């Protein structure tokens, strides 16, 4: 809070860096003994001096520093966070409690199996539950995030196709896809062929047919796509792809729209990843950690990464004995602590709760869409599922752009939606309210956007100069990129 005060007072606009406080010799750490390394243990030439520039603070100073920093952040528990494609739903506190049980948080990944039976049971259970939700046969929990899931999935595609003689060269990706899709394809040496979406915002079977051939390994499709629109042709598309020996990879980042409503496994999808930090409500943590499990149909199971959990005579075991496997994609077993939270979330909600979550996600998104459609241009008239997209077309004539609308929302106390994505729509404003927001919150948010639409007409400069009330004003991003300062420098401050 102090930062707010300081801002309005015009003093100390930003807090100090942790390196700019403290006093030489101070530490927030207490340990009873202080032995010294003997030269016969480690020769002096392998040792360093003190770490220059490291902070020297007491415990209170540390707590105060980070508490103050925290006050400069927006967060779900502070306010609505309608970021399209990000599924910023509420992260139940109970998950934080159970993830901190020492019987789960203090496990060593290389401990003998008898010491981790509970953990393996949990992981096995989560694999099964996720498979059931998606309609897939097997799941790997290893990938650390959605992008790593994509890479893992594409590696499996490649391994599978290679085993059948030809890994193929290309991957079809809709123009609405998230940037990780093409980036992951590159990692797997696939060349990206972009498939244009039509004027209804979706991919048409006939467009796929045109580009599908025996050099295409498959299609990476997001469903519902990043407009929040259900890919109507998906089953027909799957047929086309399958017929030519390709596979359907689904980017399941938007699974929050589908739980209990439609299973990817029934759509012809051969494999998909899920973002547990979206649909399964693990907190985003300012950028992670998340988890990106991959679900596959039975015919792909031999290609799943190792290790895999198997049921042995004396309990669960870990096996690497899968010669066709794509191998290991990260150390140990994935982001276990995140998997624990997702497990806890799924058993909390159960079948009905998961289905209701998706239904309310859809209800909220459609409500936002219907109330805002008079005020903001809607690029596609297709019904939306869990998120909806607008553009700045109506506001552009007053010189107001998406970025201005986004920044002005900050003044109203709301986090902006995702902007300028998907790239195919100019000035996109993508809103995903999620199911955990109340209608009253949606109304307040919608009212703010309507009010901004009015301001855009009546006082565009007010909008264009926003935000006016944040701890810092609009930041000079060009300068940051040109004059790269990526770290604090001791010499700068101390005159050393």
């Amino acid at each position, binding site marked *: 809070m102090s930062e707010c005060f300081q801002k309005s007072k015009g003093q100390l606009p930003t807090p100090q860096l942790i390196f700019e406080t403290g006093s030489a010799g101070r530490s927030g750490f207490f*340990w009873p003994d202080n032995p010294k390394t003997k030269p016969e*243990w*480690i*020769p002096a*030439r392998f040792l*360093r001096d003190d770490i220059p520039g*490291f902070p020297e603070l007491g415990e209170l100073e540390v*707590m105060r520093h980070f*508490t103050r*920093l925290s006050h*400069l952040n927006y967060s779900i*528990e*502070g306010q609505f*966070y309608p970021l399209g494609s990000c599924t910023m739903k509420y992260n139940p506190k*109970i998950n934080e409690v*159970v993830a901190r049980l*020492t019987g789960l*948080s*203090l496990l*060593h990944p*290389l401990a003998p199996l*008898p010491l*981790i*039976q509970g953990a393996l049971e949990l992981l096995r259970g989560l694999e099964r539950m996720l498979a059931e939700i998606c309609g897939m046969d097997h799941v790997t929990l290893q990938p650390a*995030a959605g*992008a790593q899931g994509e890479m893992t999935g594409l*590696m499996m595609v490649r391994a599978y196709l290679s085993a059948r003689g030809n890994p193929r060269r290309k991957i079809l990706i809709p123009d609405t896809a998230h*940037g990780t899709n093409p*980036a992951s*394809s590159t990692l797997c*040496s696939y060349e990206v062929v972009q498939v244009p979406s039509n004027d209804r915002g979706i991919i048409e079977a006939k467009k796929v047919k045109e580009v599908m051939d025996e050099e295409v390994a498959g299609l990476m499709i997001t469903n519902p796509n990043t407009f929040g629109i259900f890919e109507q042709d998906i089953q027909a598309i799957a047929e086309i792809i399958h017929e030519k020996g390709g596979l359907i990879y689904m980017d399941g980042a938007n699974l929050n729209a589908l739980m209990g409503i439609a299973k990817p496994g*029934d759509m012809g999808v051969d494999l998909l990843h899920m973002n547990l930090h979206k649909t399964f409500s693990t*907190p985003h*943590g300012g*950028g*992670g950690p998340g988890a990106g499990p991959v679900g596959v149909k039975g015919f792909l199971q031999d290609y799943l990464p190792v290790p895999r959990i198997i049921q042995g005579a004396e309990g669960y075991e870990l096996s690497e004995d899968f010669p066709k496997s794509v191998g*290991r994609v*990260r*150390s*140990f*077993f994935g982001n276990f*602590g995140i998997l624990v939270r997702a497990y806890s979330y799924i*058993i*909390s909600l159960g*079948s009905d*709760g998961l289905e209701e*979550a998706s239904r309310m996600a859809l209800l909220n998104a459609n409500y936002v869409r*219907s*109330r805002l459609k008079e005020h903001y241009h809607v690029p596609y008239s297709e019904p939306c599922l869990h998120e909806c997209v607008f553009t700045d077309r109506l506001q552009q004539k007053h010189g107001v752009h998406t970025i201005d609308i986004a920044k002005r929302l900050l003044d109203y106390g709301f986090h902006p939606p995702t902007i300028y*994505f998907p790239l195919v729509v100019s000035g996109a404003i993508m809103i995903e309210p999620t*199911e*955990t927001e109340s*209608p009253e919150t949606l109304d307040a948010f919608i009212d703010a956007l309507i009010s901004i639409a009015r301001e855009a007409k009546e006082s565009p400069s007010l909008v264009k100069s926003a935000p006016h009330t944040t701890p810092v*004003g609009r*930041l000079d*991003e060009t300068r940051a*990129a040109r004059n*790269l300062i*990526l*770290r604090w420098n001791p010499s700068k401050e101390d005159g050393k």
Partner: protein
Amino acid sequence: MRYTPHTASDKERLLHAIGVSRIDDLFGHIPPSLRERARIALPPGLSEVEVKRRMASLAAKNGTPENWGFFLGGGIYHHVIPSTVDAVISRSEFSTSYTPYQPEVSQGTLQAIYEFQTLMCELTAMEVSNAGLYDGASASAEAVLMARRLQKGRRRVFLSRALHPQYRSVIATYLKNLEEVELVEVPLTGSGQTDLQYLTKELDERAICVVVGYPNFFGIIDDLGLLHEACERCGVFLVTVTTEALSLALLRPPGAWEVEIAVGEGQSLGIPMSLGGPAFGYLACRKKFVRSIPGRLVGETVDHEGHRGFVLTLAAREQHIRREKATSNICTNQGLCTLAATVFMSTLGKVGMRQLAEVNVARAHETSERLLEEAGLTPTFNGPFFNEFVISVQALSERLSRFTSKRVVPGIPLAPWYPELQDCLLICVTEMNEREEIDQLVRMFSEE
């Protein structure tokens, strides 16, 4: 329903505004063949009390250092975590915020990342650090990919056999589909170090980089000076991988040996073992490579009034801008874990980091000495080590089961990864091992 606030009348009202009469109408366009089979077959939802009981019963089936004698390292370490760490990362302003794409309302996260980058630069003595990667293994793979981008035309990647075996697997997985790349394994010397002679012989202009553990998987300190010299001669990058980040508080850091890229696993820096994740990988390098770095970077700038502020920068390297040409596909990283490390390093500070590292060295060496002297065991290698070491134990597996019956895990058997190291055990001793626990270890190894 759990976590959905909608009452029946809320639903009515929203449906009415939308102009449909049932929620099902909102997805009426989804093919009926899909709708029919969509029901999820899972048990009904549980109350918080039931969830807690279920999770506690799973937790009770596991063994932890709280109820087992515990000498496991090998890439994940049981270290002290000051209570400041969880107090900070539990703050919902940090834990429930998104990636800081809107800098005006994310200065908390952004400044913390900037501080993290600085701390990692200082710890590794490198010029720039990114905002973190998934884990040490994928960070190693990213480092190799990065070296490959910077070393166009070259194609051989040398991995030390003393590099963490899982990391070697992950690197292999990441490189498998890049057909022009060839992986070469560098053998070990008798002191448990990377074989310099082999390298000197094999390195040439075809080599992209050499990747070594520092300390390596056996806890041993390779001589980066000599290795770098060998690399430099042919313009090869030396990439160091540190699984035990705490060691860098005491060891001469990679930057001081002039390595090109230093990566590692940050779990030791304030993050619970958690079966190996989530923690984070880090990647630091020379400034001239900055545009090839994978992952996020935070930079300093100013706002319109000239006040200092922080933003994500050089985004043109990243997937959301550059798509198939990005330096990496990474998007969500391990943000909250890097915050934990930032709090950890800030709490310990200059004094505490050093002290903690020294305590580790002392306990591990004293234990090792006692095992040799009192229990008569043989050291497998004789290179200098940080807080873990390998010993040879006759009839290891038989002995291990005796340890189990006493609720002690004395270390990690190496044979599954190193058939040549049959009956060898990797023992890790940290500040968390109390004197009585060490006494017990020595005693049990002394018993015949």
